[in-house]
């Protein structure tokens, strides 16, 4: 469903993403984790079609994002860490715009239950300045879900949400996967990744350093650790931190 084949992204001499390959099947939630500057957001932006990879192939449901961008984007949705909304469009107008762009013909029927599900129905006439951070995030999610994408990308989806919002967001992500979408979640919140992701891809300095379920990663020689945090630290070359963490807990 989402396929990355040897994707590389260069900024001058800097290899932000280096020959990255992994795939996400329908109904799967894959966690994309890595240290700051590892290339997570760059990877997501390449998959979303915002940036072109310098080399490699990205396919969404069989459509190459570079060669067939329209078909690929029609099946895709990207929820960035910071919601990018139009200051002058109301909540319902944002959804109307998305409906037209993605040709969602049953939008009139689809929008109200979507707003209800995300608990922003009473804000349908509000401009973004009148919304809290969490509500803007929910609106961004609503815009992403309206056209029923088969591939979903979430970049730090829990930033700025209250506890109830966090729970709702996790439920939304899992519901999307249950309905058959391929989902990538990028987050620094490792407990979230552990909780909702069936598989984890760890990248560091643009390269993939680990790929597998939590159990597979824990069983890997050299990556043995009690939890994802230690696996992450070891995979990204911070063995001393991982060990000191273990000792502190003891």
């Amino acid at each position, binding site marked *: 469903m989402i396929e990355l084949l040897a994707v590389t992204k260069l900024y001058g001499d800097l290899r932000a993403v280096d020959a990255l390959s992994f795939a996400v099947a329908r109904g799967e939630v894959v966690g994309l984790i890595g240290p700051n500057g590892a290339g997570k957001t760059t990877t997501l932006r390449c998959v979303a079609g*915002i940036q072109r990879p310098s080399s490699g192939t990205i396919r969404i449901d069989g459509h190459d994002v570079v060669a067939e961008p329209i078909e690929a984007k029609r099946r895709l949705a990207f929820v960035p860490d910071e919601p990018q909304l*139009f200051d002058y469009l109301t909540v319902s107008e944002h959804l109307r715009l998305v409906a037209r762009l993605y040709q969602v013909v049953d939008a009139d029927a689809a929008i109200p239950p979507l707003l209800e599900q995300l608990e922003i129905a009473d804000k349908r006439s509000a401009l973004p300045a009148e919304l809290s951070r969490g509500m803007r995030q929910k609106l961004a999610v609503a815009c992403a879900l309206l056209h029923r994408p088969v591939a979903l990308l979430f970049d730090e989806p829990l930033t700025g949400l209250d506890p109830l919002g966090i729970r709702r967001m996790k439920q939304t992500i899992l519901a999307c996967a249950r309905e058959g979408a391929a989902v990538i979640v990028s987050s620094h919140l490792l407990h979230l990744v552990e909780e909702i992701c069936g598989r984890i891809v760890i990248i560091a300095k643009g390269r993939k350093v680990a790929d597998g379920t939590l159990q597979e990663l824990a069983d890997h020689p050299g990556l043995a650790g009690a939890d994802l945090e230690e696996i992450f630290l070891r995979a990204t070359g911070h063995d001393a931190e991982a060990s000191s963490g273990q000792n502190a807990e003891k």
Partner: protein
Amino acid sequence: MFDSPFLYLSACSIKNRVLKRVRRLREPRYLIGAVVGVAYLYLAFFRRVRIRRGTAARSIGFPPEVLGAIQLAGGFILWLVVAARWIFPIPTQPLRLSGAERDFLLTAPVTRRRITSYKLLRSQIAVFLSTALMLVFAWNAVTSRWAFLLGMFLLLTTLRMHLLGVALSRATLRRAAGRPDPATIAAIAVIAVASAGALLALAPGVLAFARTRDLATALLTVHETASRPVTVAALLPFTLLVRPVFAAGPGSFLVAAWPAVVLALVNYAWVVRCEERAETSEATSELQTVEGKRSPPRPVYRRAPFALATHGRPEWALVWKNLIMLGRYANAAMLLRVAIPLAVFAIAVAGGRQRQLAAAAFPFAIVISCGLTVLGPYSFRNDLRQDLARLAVLKTWPVSGERLLWGEVLAPTIALTAIVWVCILLTAVLVLAAPPTALGWPAWLAIAASAAIVLPVVILAQVVVQNAAVVLFPGWVATGPSRPRGVEAMGQQMLMFAGSLLLLLVGILPGAVVGALVTFVGSYLIGWPAIFPGAAALAALLIAEIVLAVRLLGDVLDRTDPTAVEAG
């Protein structure tokens, strides 16, 4: 008042701002912009200063009665500005604190009064620079340059503080819903008395004009009534501010300046008082903190121009979006204040057959139409110039670059075309009132129809050129709601403006040649109305060029990396 932490903050801010501007000159776009900007300023203004430096300052020396009239006129203008602001408030945040100032200063153990004083005094730097620029404009026209500089600085400072006080008072009154404080009551009383005096002076003049239809007589009447002691006394607070500007020398300046200084101090104390009241009446949302120097304008909800269907060409989604943007950032009241009087005037003139007035206004209407066509696209920026900051969002949409661009350029084109068509219609109404002698009705009809076809296409071409600059040179064009500042930014804008005009002329040239030929040949057959097919030919060629340009630019937009734009 200007204690050491504030002095330190100001000194570091100024130093680092200058250093930042100097360092960015390493980038070609800023260096070239700076060279162009400095060259323009020198050639346009400072060269006059240099030429005159060796000669003694020429004293123009107005006769006392003329000087008195000028000062009174200046007082009138000041009164008008102040009264207008009391009656028609501009939604603005009076004393803006940046995010850093909010987090550091408001939480620090310093009084609100000291923070207000710091903000007021910091803003005087910009006022002084503006005044210095005014002096350059007026270098050869003023009697005493030092008096002009200091007098104008005093005037602008006082005016600015008073307008701040107006905004703060209104905010407090709105929030507190209670009785205004004595200082505000006194300010309102002064304005009310001045307004009464001004209206007493103006009323006879208006009546004289209504009776005689002679502007010169009306102005003379106003001058006579304005010179009466009652009117002079009523407008005194305003004329006192104007007098130092026209002082002939140091002695007369000192005599004229001290009342203006007193007025400045009174307004300063009033602003500080208003600010404290605003804080205590919990009107702090009116004093919202914003990030950066200038707060972006806030959209106001208004109905969408049309209902957007969920199927159809995606370009129209962008047109819909951008027309909404235009409507929600535009101040409809301002537009109506211009449009309604113009429409009433045109209809009244046509109905009343006021030939003289219509003949005077007719070329004015033509100039407005052409001016909007050429300059309108620089003001109507509800296109990629606003959306470039959201390019990352646009690129996630399943819409090709070409279609994105079409959607972006159509919205400002539609809005400007609507206004230009109204102007053409008003011009036609004026022609009814003052029928031309040289040309017949078929000719004028053909001219109007030709303008109705050609001007919108020229507008579209202009908008495409502006958006092309954004796509090809994103770092050179002001994008988003804020405007870059400084000499280098001015130079960039001048270069872009000159380049855009040149490109437009080059683009129009082939169509103009073909159109002229068609008109020339057709004129032998049908006379003046041949201008219409000529205009149609010009429009058709220009549209073909535009279609090709948008296709090419669409490819560029598809390949544009938003990261490069964001970094710029």
